[in-house]
């Protein structure tokens, strides 16, 4: 892929110009501004995003990293149509949102939670469960079909939430720090699983994370955001074959580059 190679060698720019949106872009966020009204009268408005741009091609995984509070969640909600931009433009094919915390229905069993999108799409309970079952098993959740969330471990709950997102059938998946709350071991497990799933069946993903290692491990491109007000300050193409190993010297180099951009 010559285009990606070219991006990888691109020099660090102080700020990225709004990128030219191609026709094959599934997500195109152009110079977006997002401002939150002050909580109290006379208080200061919070400028969460300023001149933020992001585009994602079909079946591309783009990781967005940035310091806490720089507007990553806001960006995802804009892409998902949950918020409106105050300036610039946002265009995206239907995107499903996976919130920062695993928000499952406490009264429903794990399999029913995973199959929620299918129920909403109009399938019967039996049909929805049957459709969800193969992936459920692949995620190592067999035997826990009818356990309610409070009987699952944190890692299992997170897997069910990921599954619910995958089964939505939406063209774009917007994942907000999907593995942040997990212990290192479980997180590595789930990252490996997601990488494997993506290699088998590519999906268009915007992956918000504060973990640079996770970003270069999973993404085709990494966008580094500035402190609030957030904007893209660095774009790193990760043109490495999958499966990737985090000891791969090229990945380590890219990670260093992302970290440097993050701390600039």
């Amino acid at each position, binding site marked *: 892929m010559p285009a990606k190679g070219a991006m990888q060698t691109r020099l660090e720019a102080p700020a990225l110009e709004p990128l030219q949106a191609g026709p094959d872009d599934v997500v195109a966020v152009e110079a977006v501004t997002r401002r939150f009204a002050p909580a109290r009268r006379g208080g200061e408005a919070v400028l969460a995003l300023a001149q933020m741009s992001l585009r994602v091609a079909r079946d591309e995984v783009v990781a967005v990293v940035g310091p806490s509070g720089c507007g990553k969640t806001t960006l995802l909600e804009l892409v998902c149509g949950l918020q409106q931009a105050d300036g610039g433009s946002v265009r995206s094919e*239907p995107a499903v949102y996976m919130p920062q915390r695993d928000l499952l229905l406490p009264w429903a069993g794990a399999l029913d939670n995973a199959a929620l999108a299918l129920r909403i799409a109009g399938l019967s309970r039996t049909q929805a469960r049957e459709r969800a079952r193969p992936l459920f098993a692949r995620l190592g959740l067999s035997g826990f079909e009818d356990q309610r969330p409070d009987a699952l471990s944190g890692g299992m709950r997170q897997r069910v939430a990921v599954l619910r997102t995958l089964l*939505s059938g939406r063209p774009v998946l917007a994942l907000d720090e999907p593995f942040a709350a997990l212990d290192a071991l479980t997180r590595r497990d789930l990252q490996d699983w997601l990488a494997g799933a993506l290699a088998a069946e590519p999906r268009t993903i915007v992956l918000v994370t504060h973990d640079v290692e996770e970003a270069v491990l999973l993404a085709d491109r990494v966008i580094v955001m500035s402190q609030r007000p957030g904007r893209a300050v660095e774009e790193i193409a990760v043109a490495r074959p999958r499966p990737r190993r985090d000891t791969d010297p090229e990945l380590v180099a890219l990670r260093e580059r992302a970290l440097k951009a993050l701390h600039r």
Partner: protein
Amino acid sequence: MTVSVRRRGRRVLPPLALALALLGVWQLYVESGSVDALILPSPTDVASALYNDRGLLWDALGPTALEVLAGIAIAVAIGMVLAVAIHLSSTLRRAVHPLVLASQTVPIPVVAPLLIFWLGFGLAPKLVIVALICFFPVVLNTLDGLADVDPGLLKVMHTLDASRWATLRRVELPSALPGVFSGAKIAIVVAVIGAVLAEQAASEQGLGHLIQLSTAELDSARSYAAMVVLSAFAILLFGTLTLLERQLLPWAHRTRRGDPR
């Protein structure tokens, strides 16, 4: 086995001990002669009234229990529908909320006779009164439950293209069910009072009627016995509802590993 017996003992013993202690104080107070037995009968008098008039009390409990149960059922049905309607429409909320509040300030002893003129001496006016004072806690608690959904979950539903109805059915209504139960439990207490007031306004039967009759006959022991029956019934109903809720909504009561919350 022994552990479970001991644990049950630890749960039953304190309320039992407290009740016995209070009864003892009450008995001593009455026996000391500092209060007229017509005003305050001793616990032993009440106990013998409970025993001697058991047939009378049992017969009186039937109609009262029916009024309470049916009244609460009506209140839960109307209250849930009203809560959902208010939840869905802010216009309706603004329109109905003051009326719902106003309905609670209605003094039952004043309206009870009016309702009886209007609806006759049968079950109807009693059900109206009981349902009227019960639907308020049901509406409030159901509304709380409906609004208590995690906003993140609503965002997920939105991006899944869920209709308003789908969100209500799959997320908001289930999350409101514990609220419906709390509302119904609070309703029990007021329902019992409402039923007695309604019966005292006009009735030939029921515990309220019996209390009125016994008071008129200066048989305060029987009057108190009727109140004891009424309390016991309320406690039983409360316990039943609690058990039912545990059975139907186990997710609302258990944290991880099944520890009771």
